[in-house]
């Protein structure tokens, strides 16, 4: 009945999604959990590396990759950041809030894009921060045990650390896509666990024509980015990570299509 605003822009939807995300305690608990668990695993993974190095064979010492060792925490971190991504969408389905959100932003692709951008920004920052922190803590612990360790300036290290942060952000986006398509937290997280753990676990059982996909699969080929000593199977780890990002983009595209079409 009054002129309160003139036209709604994407920036408004973006800002609203940020208000939603930051006003939930669960967002901050999940992030705290990401760092507590993520760094805790790093301490466990590198804390006894001295013993392992002492008993390692010459070939094993040659392949010794202190960077990768300090980044293995990604295995669990990807699930926690996946929870964060999933909840951005599924918490609205669980309560029906998504209908209110669409009453505010009736252009559906705009609403979902705002969610994706805000969650991606948080995931990129959190992913990078975690990877840098885990690298520095891991290397400090390795150095204290007198085993070879890496510095940020060493060849390939920055690439592995930053690539790792991007890997985690991509998993968060994958989770948003799954959450949008499946509309339920449990279903989306189960699917995510299936993708990052079960498929790699049963990789040997896959038919040959699917094996090519594994080069770009999370926890498998795409995880080559965490190495500084390139594995002979994946000489160009960024290509593998890029392939995974394309896959994530495909899932997100499907999410946009179903979100646009579905009745709510």
């Amino acid at each position, binding site marked *: *009945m*009054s*002129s*309160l*605003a*003139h*036209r*709604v*822009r994407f920036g*408004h*939807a973006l*800002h*609203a*999604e940020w*208000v*939603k995300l930051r*006003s*939930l*305690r*669960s967002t901050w608990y999940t992030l705290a959990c990401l760092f507590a668990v993520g760094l805790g695993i790093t301490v466990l993974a590198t804390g006894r590396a001295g013993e392992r190095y002492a008993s390692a064979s010459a070939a094993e010492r040659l392949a010794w990759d202190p960077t990768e060792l300090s980044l293995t925490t990604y295995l669990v971190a990807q699930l926690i950041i996946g929870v964060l991504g999933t909840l951005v969408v599924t*918490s*609205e389905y669980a*309560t*029906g*809030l998504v*209908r*209110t*959100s*669409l*009453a*505010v*932003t*009736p*252009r559906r692709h705009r609403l979902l894009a705002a969610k994706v951008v805000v969650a991606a920004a948080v995931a990129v920052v959190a992913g990078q921060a975690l990877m840098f922190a885990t690298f520095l803590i891991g290397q400090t612990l390795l150095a204290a045990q007198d085993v070879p360790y890496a510095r940020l300036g060493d060849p390939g290290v920055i690439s592995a650390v930053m690539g790792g942060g991007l890997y985690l952000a991509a998993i968060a986006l994958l989770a948003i896509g799954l959450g949008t398509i499946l509309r339920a937290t449990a279903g989306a997280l189960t699917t995510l666990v299936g993708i990052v753990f079960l498929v790699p676990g049963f990789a040997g059982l896959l038919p040959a024509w699917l094996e090519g996909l594994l080069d770009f699969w999370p926890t498998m080929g795409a995880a080559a980015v965490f190495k500084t000593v390139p594995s002979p199977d994946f000489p160009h780890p960024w290509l593998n990570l890029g392939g995974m990002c394309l896959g994530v983009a495909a899932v997100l595209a499907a999410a946009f299509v179903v979100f646009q079409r579905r*009745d*709510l």
Partner: protein
Amino acid sequence: MTMIEVRGLTKRYGLDTVVDDLSFTVEPGQVTGFLGPNGAGKSTTMKVILGLAAPTSGSVAVGGRRYRDLPVPLTEVGALLDAGAVHGARKARDHLLALATGNGLPRRRVDEVLARTGLESVAHKRAGEFSLGMRQRLGIAAALLGDPWVLIFDEPVNGLDPEGIRWIRDFMRSLAREGRAVLVSSHLMNEMAQTADHLVVIGRGKLIADTGMGEFLRDRGEGTVLVRTPEAAEFALRLTATGATVKEGPDASLVVSGLASEEIGKLAAYHGTVLSELTPQRPSLEDAFMELTKDTVEYQGATA
């Protein structure tokens, strides 16, 4: 000016036709009651109005436009479909702030609607701690954020205590007095009688009545008359002789339909019959509504 225009709306889910060629309008300055038994298609129609469900055919316009084409939706339409649709862990104020931000509305609007719905003191509580009545208020506060011309409420008094019901009823009346168009759905006729100026009644997705409240009462108001007399059997014969229908009422009374109380009184005077009671019975609104929709109720209980 017509605020909501539903034209030939049909919505099918698979083979199920939930809304069937429905047309009606909602005008400003009045409360339009959207009435029908459960499953009649009220919620679906409201979802289509808000663009949450796509019509199979037909169209819906709000202020002449599709909902999704409104430049700033909250300033034109405020809707409360489900009071439970809030994240329980989010504080009431943050919930409203997120919605206001999404339409670029000034922050002060959040405080204004909190004040208008009497929620200031609980603005910093998490919505999950709210009672149903408070959640309804929060939903209404959200609907008012953009100070819209059109308000849509789906079963707003469902599950509320009498005080809550009265508050919502008065509130809707006051919104209509301010010149807004208010569309309220309900499956309870009596509730509408005290709130609505206009009625749109549907059953199984089809329009049954689209009429003013007063007309509705008059048209459906074919009443009966309760008659008590010591000479019941004899007088009943005389009544039937005039063409009236007589049924046995409680405590040896007669329930007469088809004859006005005045006529019955004249008849009694003519024959010198002593009447101890002569009471016109207005049909309850609920009866009128049941009568109207009895063929359209999806699952009818067997009468014992």
